[in-house]
């Protein structure tokens, strides 16, 4: 599980659409985004040679958005296999963005303790190898 927070000097209503509007999404992640921000709707981002694919599970502007995350070409991290939850907390005029990327399906091999291969698939997508 990965948890990350960032404080942004803008209210949640401003920050939230950066996770749901394709034009805003590509200003900070990926090069192309195809987003249908409603439960069950498409979540698709392209990075260089790879892509992240999933679907929105929850869209609750401007407080919370949840989407699944996976890599189509990689059997170890198929679309839908991991979940990203983003919670927007108003603080003064700022927003605290709390992002949690949780797992990543149980390994097919129990001995494969660290699941590093799945992590690397995410990484590969991230760096657009």
């Amino acid at each position: 599980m990965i948890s990350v927070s960032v404080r942004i000097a803008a209210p949640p209503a401003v920050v939230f659409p950066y996770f749901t509007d394709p034009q805003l999404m590509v200003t900070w992640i990926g090069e192309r985004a195809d987003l249908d921000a409603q439960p069950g709707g498409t979540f698709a981002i392209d990075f260089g040679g790879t892509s992240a694919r999933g679907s929105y599970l929850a869209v609750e502007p401007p407080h919370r958005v949840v989407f699944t995350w996976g890599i189509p070409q990689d059997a170890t991290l198929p679309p839908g296999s991991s979940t990203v939850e983003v919670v927007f907390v108003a603080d003064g005029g700022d927003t605290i963005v709390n992002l949690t990327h949780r797992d990543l399906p149980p390994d097919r091999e129990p001995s494969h303790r660290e699941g590093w291969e799945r992590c690397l698939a995410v990484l590969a997508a991230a760096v657009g190898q």
Partner: protein
Amino acid sequence: MTPEPGEPEAPAGPDVVLRALADPHRRQILRLVQHAELPAGQIAAHFDLTQQAVSQHLTVLKRAGLLAERRAGTRRLYSLRSESLQPLRTLLDEFWPDALGRLKQSVERAHPRTERRRPT
């Protein structure tokens, strides 16, 4: 752990490691040798590949620092060097922080806050 013989391996950068991992056969090889040291022939037996192709995959993995090679008599035994994955784990740990850093910049650039300069 005894130091591995053979040609010295320069520390491989993340790009080299990622390229080595980009191939499903090579990932499968790493799975095979993750907990057991295996000779090349036994690794090759798991694949529908020529011995030469498997040998090439082993070379790529060795160059990336992912595979340790040990000679035992006439055999060469291979095992995973899991420590070589640590730099990639570190990079992965930085993925979302980096992305959120860009998000922050993007939002704050698009929505500069002017009221901070005003007295309240």
